[in-house]
């Protein structure tokens, strides 16, 4: 037995070869069979069985890669190798739940990167994946990590060195990414490290290597996931119409696994959770590090989270010209990001930590300590790295704590695991030791008696080994020297004399118990032997480091941007006194009139009103109008165009609202209170729209205009036939003739679908009938809603032929095109539109920006109005939206419309065409208190909105705005000072310290219709120009 032990020890220290505990039964042996037991006893240790359960002076016995016994009174088996862990700490090794360890990254499929839904690229219409898989290349449910996994010890070592012992690994490619495998990081054959072959199923909002054009947008990805859930359900009935679809089969097979969604951003977290809610799935959400900015919403998901510790790098702020373009939100996020785990803990949200996303994995511990400094408890940190991930993956019976029977994955540290001075000494995986910093196992600091047998006789020193490799040789004089120790071998040196006359003596040796023996060479080249014996430990030095400054942190604002609120404004009772009130009602313009607002509604309009509960706004000499309504807007959404196909009625703008758009605030400053957020014009049948109120600071769901009729965007002409595509257009249609066919085909399919649905429903009611399962098609559902007058169209349109054509198709299928938007040639067919029953929403004076608008005229609104159409002026533009009142005023100039009628084009008229005129659009008792107080006649170029009120809440106030500007500047200055101080005193380290990057301008991504180039500023990027959106 003793022999075996020696052998084992020998093997244990030989790196680079497998240390198989048990020969694999089926594998032939190439040399000599080498059965081993691997029994060790770790004694006198402080053992954390779990984050909550600590044993002092305890013993742990492991055998065959598993924990055999653990506790305070454990009898040590005779065959155990005993490792004295006096002063050491033992913890369960960490589990990384979000890894792609051992998985080769997916090769880009053929022609990837060429696709896209943008305007300028050639599209890839179908999947390039070969085999009996699904139609969409980004749904890779069939991927199985366990089949493409292969252990990679170099990568494993990187993870082991920061404390990890096992990971959940998967291929990070596609929207559905198939299954993950749970493996240990042992340097063992794949067959042994694979603990669970199918441990999880993975999803994301990234189409990865798929070059297929659909989905090209956030809402497209959401729609695809939604439809795939439905399709997979339907596929269970083995529909002949589908044949074999291995992607759907795998999708169904994967459903009983833990479902992990890489959402990677606070709003995406909520989007993912919402998809899950629709299909009874609770995802585990991989966050983006900014969850603390919306912590209430995060808690409401009831999801468990996976958090990375990848904090934004500090920025250089030494050049005011560069600083000019640095965003306050980026600075604030830099400051607050390390508090993300603490925020989740405080909110009672379950989470795991991952080393994923770190540029340098070695930063993991430093970043984790930073999270702890920001308030994460050590107990929670340990739990998030051990029990929490094991529990989520259903492997806690095997791993995640140190209990008898579990896998012997543990780490040994020199002190409490998260303390700054603690060293990770060893990381044992499946009962096999991996040295991390073995050299620190013994603390060599202290006093030694050193005797050197030189040619001039015996020299004796007392040698003090101190911190940082400094040694003092105390003999007749005290000589300074240096030392290094690598766990086995020691090197020492000391210097005699100074300056150019300094002479160095060097010594090296090996450790043998308490004694060191070695060999030396003096300044003259004389060789000698030496011996040193340990005398006493160094006196622990008082901690000389300065006490840490208490953290001074900025506040989270809503939204997390300049002009965000620290506290959201509240609904108030408001009395607007003595203004000129433009009612947009038959009552017209009322001079010296009061408007009383109570509980978010207009309570009274009249003279000399009073209400003791109301805040009084003196509007003497000022004008009061209804809040402006923009029928055509693209603000506040994460994506606008799903151009991957010609018919995308399944996508929904409401799935991807972005409350962090500064343009919400800017437009409030122009009196806008309601905006209709439309899909773009990239395709004939675009996506479902979303009506919102500009409740600046509220979340994505709270922005929605409750109870409004659902709408959908259609488009015609140059954009949908992709006239601007520079590389040709393979997508049908390429002409206005084809556009009609797309419409006809879509509604014909929808009609047939509706019939099939009804027939199936009736059949399935009958007793004993074989049930008919019709595939639920979300694309056609939306079209059926249109035909049943439950969803309404706003149709991007320019030239008279296409306007006329679209009305005829609608009439054929028995519905009305609710609104034609843009409609720049509406004046040519106004009579037909009136007969059809359409509304018109147009620009005031834009024209000739492309071929189909060469006949656009600024008299369009006036003529259509005169013919009797309900006409609105819209923006389709983040900039122009804040001057919509002035755009409406242009009809006074071009056509001589009355000022009151002109104002109606941005208030009650759009309210009517959006079917919300019972709630907004005019100043009438009982309607929502969406009001604007203007400095001047609202139709004048000189008018400024002074206060903008939504639902009785003042969301914009010019005085408050002035205050916020000062606050923004002060906050920015504070963080810049902090960065400057940090840079001056930086000692290095991640996420701060010495890790500085060049100042990064804060670009603003603007979603547009991509219809016309309106220059909106130096730091704006059109979303269509971004690779990731194409």
């Amino acid at each position, binding site marked *: 037995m003793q022999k075996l032990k020696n052998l084992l020890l020998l093997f244990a220290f030989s790196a680079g070869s497998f240390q198989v505990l048990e020969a694999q039964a089926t594998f032939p042996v190439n040399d000599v069979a080498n059965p081993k037991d691997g029994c060790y006893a770790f004694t006198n240790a402080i053992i954390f069985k779990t984050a909550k359960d600590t044993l002092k002076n305890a013993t742990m016995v492991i055998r065959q890669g598993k924990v055999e016994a653990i506790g305070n009174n454990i009898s040590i088996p005779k065959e155990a190798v005993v490792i004295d862990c006096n002063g050491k700490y033992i913890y369960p090794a960490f589990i990384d739940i979000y890894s792609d360890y051992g998985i080769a990254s997916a090769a880009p499929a053929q022609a990837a990167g060429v696709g896209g839904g943008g305007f*300028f690229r050639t599209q890839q219409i179908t999947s390039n994946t070969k085999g009996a898989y699904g139609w969409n290349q980004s749904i890779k449910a069939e991927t199985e990590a366990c089949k493409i996994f292969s252990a990679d010890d170099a990568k494993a070592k990187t993870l082991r060195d920061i404390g990890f012992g096992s990971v959940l690994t998967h291929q990070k490619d596609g929207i559905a990414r198939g299954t993950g495998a749970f493996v240990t990081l042992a340097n063992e054959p794949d067959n042994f490290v694979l603990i669970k072959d199918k441990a999880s199923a993975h999803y994301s909002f990234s189409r990865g290597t798929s070059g297929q054009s659909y989905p090209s947008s956030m809402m497209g990805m959401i729609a695809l996931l939604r439809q795939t859930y439905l399709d997979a359900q339907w596929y269970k009935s083995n529909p002949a119409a589908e044949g074999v679809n291995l992607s759907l089969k795998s999708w169904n097979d994967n459903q009983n696994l833990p479902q992990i969604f890489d959402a990677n951003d606070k709003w995406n977290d909520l989007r993912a959770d919402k998809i899950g809610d629709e299909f009874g799935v609770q995802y585990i959400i991989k966050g983006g590090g900014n969850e603390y900015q919306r912590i209430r919403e995060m808690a409401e998901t009831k999801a468990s989270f996976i958090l990375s510790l990848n904090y934004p790098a500090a920025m250089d702020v030494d050049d005011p*010209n*560069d600083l*000019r373009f640095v*965003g306050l939100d980026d600075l604030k996020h830099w400051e607050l990001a390390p508090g993300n785990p603490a925020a989740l803990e405080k909110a009672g949200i379950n989470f795991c930590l991952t080393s994923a996303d770190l540029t340098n994995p070695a930063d993991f511990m430093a970043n984790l300590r930073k999270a702890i400094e920001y308030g994460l408890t050590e107990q929670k940190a340990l739990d998030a790295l051990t029990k929490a991930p094991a529990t989520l993956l259903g492997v806690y019976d095997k791993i995640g704590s140190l209990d008898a029977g579990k896998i012997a994955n543990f780490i040994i540290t020199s002190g409490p695991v998260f303390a700054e001075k603690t060293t990770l000494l060893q990381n044992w995986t499946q009962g096999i030791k991996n040295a991390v910093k073995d050299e620190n196992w013994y603390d060599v600091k202290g006093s030694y008696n050193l005797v050197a047998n030189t040619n001039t006789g015996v020299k004796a020193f007392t040698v003090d080994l101190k911190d940082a490799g400094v040694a003092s040789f105390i003999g007749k004089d005290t000589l300074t020297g240096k030392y290094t120790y690598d766990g086995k071998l020691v090197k020492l040196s000391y210097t005699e004399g100074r300056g150019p006359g300094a002479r160095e003596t060097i010594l090296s040796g090996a450790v043998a118990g308490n004694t060191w023996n070695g060999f030396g060479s003096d300044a003259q080249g004389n060789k000698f032997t030496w011996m040193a014996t340990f005398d006493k430990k160094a006196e622990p030095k008082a901690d000389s480091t300065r006490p840490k400054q208490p953290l001074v942190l900025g506040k989270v604002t809503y939204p997390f*941007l*300049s*002009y965000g609120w620290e506290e959201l404004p509240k609904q108030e009772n408001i009395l607007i006194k003595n203004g000129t009130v433009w009612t947009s009602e038959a009552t017209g313009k009322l001079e010296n009139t009061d408007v009383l607002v109570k509980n978010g509604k207009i309570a009274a309009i009249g003279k000399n009103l009073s209400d003791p509960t109301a805040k009084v706004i003196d509007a003497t000499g000022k004008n009061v109008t209804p809040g402006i309504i923009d029928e055509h807007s693209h603000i506040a959404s994460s994506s606008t165009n799903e151009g991957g196909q010609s018919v995308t009625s399944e996508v929904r703008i409401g799935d991807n609202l972005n409350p962090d758009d*500064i*343009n919400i*605030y*800017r437009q409030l*400053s122009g009196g806008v209170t309601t905006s209709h957020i439309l899909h773009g014009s990239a395709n004939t049948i675009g996506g479902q729209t979303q009506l919102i109120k500009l409740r600046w600071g509220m979340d994505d769901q709270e922005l929605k205009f409750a109870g409004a009729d659902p709408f959908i965007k259609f488009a015609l002409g140059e954009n949908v036939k992709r006239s601007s595509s520079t590389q040709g257009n393979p997508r049908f249609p390429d002409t206005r003739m084809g556009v009609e066919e797309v419409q006809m085909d879509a509604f014909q399919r929808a009609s047939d679908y509706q019939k099939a649905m009804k027939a199936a429903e009736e059949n399935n009611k009958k007793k004993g009938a074989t049930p008919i399962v019709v595939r639920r098609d979300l694309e056609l559902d939306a079209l059926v809603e249109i035909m049943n007058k439950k969803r309404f169209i706003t149709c991007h349109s320019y030239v008279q032929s296409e306007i006329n054509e679209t009305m005829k198709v609608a009439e054929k299928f028995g519905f009305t095109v609710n609104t034609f938007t843009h409609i720049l040639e509406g*004046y040519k067919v*106004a*009579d037909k539109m009136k007969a059809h029953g359409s509304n018109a929403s147009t620009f005031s*004076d*834009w*024209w*000739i*920006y*492309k*071929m189909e608008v*060469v*006949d656009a*005229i*600024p*008299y369009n609104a006036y*003529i259509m109005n*005169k*013919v009797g159409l309900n006409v609105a002026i819209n923006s389709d533009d983040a*900039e*122009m939206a804040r001057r919509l009142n*002035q755009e409406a*005023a242009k009809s*006074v*100039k071009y056509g001589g419309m009355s*000022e009151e009628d002109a104002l109606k084009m941005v208030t009650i008229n759009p309210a009517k065409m959006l079917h919300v005129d019972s709630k907004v659009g005019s100043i009438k008792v009982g309607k929502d208190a969406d009001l604007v107080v203007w400095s001047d*006649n609202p*139709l*004048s*170029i*000189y*008018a*400024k909105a002074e206060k903008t009120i939504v639902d009785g809440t003042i969301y914009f106030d010019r005085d408050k705005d002035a205050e916020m500007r000062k606050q*923004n500047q002060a906050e*920015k200055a504070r963080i810049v000072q902090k960065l400057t101080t940090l840079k001056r005193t930086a000692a290095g380290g991640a996420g701060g310290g010495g890790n500085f990057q060049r100042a*990064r*301008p804060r*670009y603003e991504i603007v979603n547009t219709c991509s219809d016309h*180039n309106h*220059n*909106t*500023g*130096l*730091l704006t*990027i059109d979303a269509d*120009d971004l*690779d*990731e959106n194409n």
Partner: protein
Amino acid sequence: MKKIFIYIGCVFATASVSAQETMSPAPAQKETIALTNATIHIGNGQVIENGTVIFSNGKITEVGAGIATGSAKLIDCKGKQIYPGLILPSSQLGLVEVPTVRATDDATEIGEMNPSIRSLVAYNTDSKVINTLRPNGILLANIVPAGGIISGSSSVVQLDAWNWEDAAYKADLGIHFRMPSLLTRRGGRGGFGNFGGQQQNVDPVKRGLEQIEAVKAFFREAKAYLAEPKHESTNLKFEAVRGLFEKKQKLFIHCNIVKEMLLAVDFAKEFGFDVVLVGAVDSWQIADILKQNNIAVILSQLHNLPTMIDDDIDQPFKTPYLLQKAGVLFALNDDDENSRSRNLPFNAGTASAYGLTKEQALSAITLNTANILGIADKTGSIEKGKDANIVVSEGDILDMKSNIVTQAFIQGRSIDLNNKQKQLAEKYEKKYGIK
């Protein structure tokens, strides 16, 4: 059958005459005209109430209140406002018709250093856009080429002409230098892709600085070349910038951020050029430096979003006021595609809402512009001796609801304020019987 066809043909021919899309330029002024009883906005800040302006042979002969009108033809402008013709300071009018149709774009030439390119020769007097600017008061425009780094020379044209030679108001008045951007690009995932045509992995700031240095090297070589009395072979590019060194031309530097503008100042210092900044969104940050160095500014459209999300939400609107306060000579523009240039007066109106007086705002689209373009001896204000470039409006020309231009004169010629758009409106008003 044949007859019927002929008959139909005649009907169409007649219709096309009444809906002619091109207006004929007005003949030269023959009789002396006096506009009387008007509020006259001189353009230099002064306002004359109940005033008269008299012009003869295309020139203003008298302006004032209570002046004798002699034998002049009287036009009673009671209750109306009179303004100098508005000037568009930097535009691609007549060079680009429909921006998405490549064949109609003559603004962007191939190559980086094209000082000898001249916009004037491509200016299309029959552009349909021109006639839509005049009814809003815009009578002159500086036509600017767009390509490369040095784009070429611009010329001021008057907007009522048979051809470009007729249109030329001041030819080749300045050279346009489009300074490469020194703004750090957005980093991270995806980079910029095809954004701005920037190559990836090239630091655009470093590249920009190199390009700017190349432009300096060009001017140094040009200076040396021009100092040589005779040349064996003529260099057209160097010859094209002679006017800059002789101060007969100005250097228009298109740039936006402070770093770029500071380097622009250096061009003025090293070469002694008259420098005008075009765009200059951040000029308000270094207004005092611009003032000290006599650098003029042409601001791009005011109706724009703030540069930064953190900026004051009304920053673009109040920039003119900040320049005015610092004493910088500046003009306003609306260059966001030709079709929108007609909103030039409303940009000035916005500047007035955010700090300028109305007369200061007017100067920023008339006299200031004329000074910057070097045509103030001929136009920009209603003063004796200048060209009779005059606009008569029902009301405040800076406010869209009262900008109703009833008459306009270019060099004393009463121009036709009709255009394609009015004709289309009339056509359909007739169809619907709504007028």
